[in-house]
């Protein structure tokens, strides 16, 4: 999952070719939504509604799937997506304090994007790097053995373009 900048209206390509590949098939909701998200960087409500109309699937079914799985997002992402691990091993090693510090530092709540569009802060269940706890991912890079202070410094490096 690559971090992408918010997609403006002008960049939106036509949905038709994408939607047509799903016509007449069963059980398409997840791959269809994943394709739409790949095209726009997120799931714009209008695009989901348009796909539902075109394929004669109730829009509620698509939104039901979109809101069920954590991979789908209805809002655009920031340039850097921060995925702070809130798994058990990270929790007992103090990830809550990092979570609080990042929210304070970025002035956003969990799931939100900073005003400048640079960072989106997400909490995830477990990144599977338990022996490096506490851990966060920024984009595809894993940063381990964090402290609140170190986590902020990691983000500063991304902001300055040094990471």
């Amino acid at each position: 999952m690559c971090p992408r900048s918010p997609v403006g209206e002008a960049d939106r390509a036509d949905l038709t070719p994408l939607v047509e590949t799903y016509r007449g098939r069963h059980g398409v909701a997840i791959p269809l939504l994943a394709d739409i998200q790949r095209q726009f960087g997120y799931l714009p409500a209008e695009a989901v509604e348009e796909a539902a109309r075109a394929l004669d699937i109730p829009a509620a079914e698509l939104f039901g799937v979109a809101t069920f799985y954590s991979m789908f997002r209805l809002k655009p992402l920031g340039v850097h997506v921060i995925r702070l691990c809130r798994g058990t091993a990270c929790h007992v090693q103090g990830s809550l304090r990092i979570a609080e510090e990042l929210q304070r530092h970025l002035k956003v709540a969990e799931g939100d994007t900073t005003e400048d569009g640079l960072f989106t802060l997400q909490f995830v269940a477990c990144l599977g790097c338990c022996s490096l706890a506490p851990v966060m991912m920024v984009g595809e890079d894993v940063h381990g053995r964090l402290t609140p202070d170190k986590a902020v410094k990691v983000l500063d490096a991304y902001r300055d373009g040094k990471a």
Partner: protein
Amino acid sequence: MERPSLATPTTVRVGLASCGIASGATAVYEKLRSLLADHDDIELQQVGCVGLCFHEPLVEVEVDGTRYLYGEVTPEIAEAILAFHLRGEGDIEERLVFNSEGDAAENAMLAKQVRIVLRNCGHIDPERIEAYVARDGYQALTQALRMKPEEIIAEVEKSGLRGRGGAGFSTGLKWRFTRAAAGDVKYVVCNADEGDPGAFMDRSVLEGDPHSVLEGMAICARSVGASEGVIYCRAEYPLAVRRLEGAIAQARQAGYLGRDILRSGFDFEIKVKEGAGAFVCGEETALLASIEGRRGTPRPRPPFPAQKGLWGKPTVINNVETFANVPWILVHGADAFARHGVGKSRGTKVFALAGKVRKGGLVEVPMGMPLRELVEGIGGGVGEGHAIKAVQMGGPSGGCIPAELLDTPVDYESITATGAIMGSGGMVVLDDTSCMVDVARFFLHFTQSESCGKCPFCRIGTRRMLEILERICRGEGKVSDLARLEELSVQVKDGSLCGLGQTAPNPVLTTLRYFRGEYEAHIVDKRCPAKVCTTLIHYRIDPGTCIGCTLCARQCPVSAISGERRKAHTIVDETCVRCGQCVTVCPVQAISVESP
């Protein structure tokens, strides 16, 4: 350290699984590649996780069949390792963590293990099928193609292998039911949706030895009469997905997958299906719904997937570790497998040791090993000056086993008797700095947010339980809350359709059973004995010790610390957010945490 051998190393291996990469192994690999560019006689390999995660990045040098494993390697150390092995220069003994012929720091840790599932992890390049084949890979499949399907099932049944995903159902029996089910079209599904926080053994197998899973699935397909397989893998494991897809392509090319496998007339294809992020999809009926493109909500069983599974057809669903055991069983025999273990738990189990333990990583031990041996003998116990308080097993569905029960043997039945479950093998060690009420709250927060919402008891009951636990952690609990928690636990267990709800109360029930005193301290004395729950603790600077260096005041993110240079500082309790950063920076340990 003496130079081990005058011979030139034949192979240099770098651990490039997720944890290695996260510790900087890629830079080490690149450095070694440039240094070895002129050495055609030395093979540089990337391998999966060997399990010594706390020593990552790891580099292994093989000389004349002897393996020397070095830990905490940086690009500079990598250069020193080569200088030592190629030219006998310098000394790098302090980085040696394992020596297959001699003695080194972690030899004992590895000697206590029996590696069946992890037999190839850390030894072979997972991206090259030749490396897998060279270590008896696909020999079991070749054998299976010559056996009758019933014979394969009988062998797996005889081994005593039980599902390693948590529930522990007999694998052979599951295959037998699916074989017996009516229908021409059947499926084999591999559950690689490793969602338990604190468990990462499936990730390591997929990243370090993907072919063992493919081979296990193919053998299963042959025995039940399936021709299509699906691996449902977490989207959070991008490297595992990449390696699986590469392995499938290579296996097809080599004729181990696809049409007419090894000219036997048997067809079997495997597809990788990425999950979209939902913990409940680790439950088998929810997983099937998700593969079919729907919201991943469970349905009542029966019918079991063995009768009506994917697209309504008979389906075997096993997890990654279970499949990885299968080729070994066929090659070495059911008896060799059953020789390990105790009672109804045969073979080995892989555990992900994490938390407060000193040597965190992946370990594979025979079933029945006492928990103490695992946590203290292999894991090295907890840090100096601390004591083990409990071991959390089985993730959000499991429970906390207290220190006084550390002699419990690790097998399905004994672990269940403590109130925890074997689960997928996550083992998080807690010490005296871990608050058990906070741990229970943590798990309830997880299950509450991951509840799919289908069953009201799970959806609403876990919410009510979480609210009570949050209140207790804030010091606003009532004595009647404990009885209410127990009552809700029973209702949520009884009123839920799937494993998520049926086991969600376990962390609460086990902590209430073994650590009731800690709940009471929070409720009655408004005190958190482990000094974790933020509203029940205060930070205080000892004026006699403080040297007025101002470091803490500058570090404080909310400017709660004031004081003049060279004079004692004070913390304004109302402003303090209890982040603990001042404690970390104080050079004279003048700041203490207090709970009344």
